[in-house]
């Protein structure tokens, strides 16, 4: 249950935070746009690095040597001068050239598959390994082992030691 005043407090904080964010960004955007301080090649590259050349395969825009890529870097520069944010520029490129200019598929719709499937496969693997490793406990010759949670403790290692000496005795 939410405390009513507490909820207001959260809301206030959020608004305050947003205000600070806006206040923080407006001046910097103005500086970029109006102070006549043109974006450096490094500023352009910082954005270009996150985008992929739409015509060549799998080459980031910041290092692609073709003329087309030089033009796109120029576009980024123009947009930076116009005061666009990094996100806006990326969105512009997506609208113009499609999702493939992004280094990763956008997290929408079907694309979630990219992010979800590998962890799922990995977890299935973890399950199988876990099953294998717990089976060794159950089938262990020493019945006391079963009760013991396996992550512990001096007692467990005692048992382990006993086991080991037993096996070693067997070997000799």
């Amino acid at each position, binding site marked *: 249950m939410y405390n009513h005043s507490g909820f207001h407090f959260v809301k206030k904080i959020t608004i305050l935070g947003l205000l600070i964010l806006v206040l923080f960004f407006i001046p910097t955007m103005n500086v970029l746009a109006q102070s006549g301080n043109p974006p450096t090649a490094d500023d352009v590259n910082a954005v270009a690095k996150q985008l992929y050349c739409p015509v060549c395969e799998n080459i980031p825009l910041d290092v692609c040597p073709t003329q087309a890529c030089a033009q796109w870097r120029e576009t980024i520069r123009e947009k930076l001068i116009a005061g666009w944010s990094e996100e806006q520029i990326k969105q512009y490129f997506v609208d113009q050239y*499609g999702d493939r200019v992004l280094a990763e598929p956008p997290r929408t719709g079907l694309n979630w598959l990219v992010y979800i499937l590998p962890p799922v496969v990995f977890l299935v693997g973890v399950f199988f390994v876990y099953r294998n490793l717990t089976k060794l406990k159950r089938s262990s010759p020493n019945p006391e082992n079963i009760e013991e949670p396996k992550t512990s403790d001096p007692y467990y290692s005692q048992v382990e030691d006993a086991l080991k000496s037993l096996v070693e005795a067997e070997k000799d």
Partner: protein
Amino acid sequence: MQNPSSEENTQKRSLPTGVVTIVFAIVLGFLALLAWGLNNAQKGPIQVGKSVPPFTLTSFSGDVYDTAELQGKVIVVNFWASWCKPCEQEAAEMEQAWKEYQPTGEVIFLGVDYVDTETEALAYLDKFNITYPNGPDLRTKISQLFRIRGVPETYIIDKEGKLAGVKIGPYTSIGEIKMMIDPLLD
């Protein structure tokens, strides 16, 4: 396919049918995907004689051209880009051809600017005095529709909306352009 060690320790059982089915389903699914990808890679541009799905082009000046509404006219779809050197070879001829056909009202030229920057594209149009409608290929939808391999490529759609001719690479003369359009006119 990727489950580590699904061992049934010391049990000489064979795999349950369910697992076998799933494994084969995954394998066949993957093979189908490969087959589709291969088919796609080997498929050239769309075939002459097939009807072209409608698409819309928004020109740089903001006019919208819907090929569904343009039926009854011969549509010349020319893919180009400002960074494409060979495109420059045919630019003047394309414009000249457009000037000849424009008065008849039977033919429309659509220039599709393939992955380009607007500034450079407008400069290019200016340089060659191109007057027929041109617009960007937003999200490369139109080029994917035609499955183009590069620029320049030109596709000519007849009055029934069927693909009548394809030119890969630049036209070398205005005669070549007219040779492909004239038979489609009444």
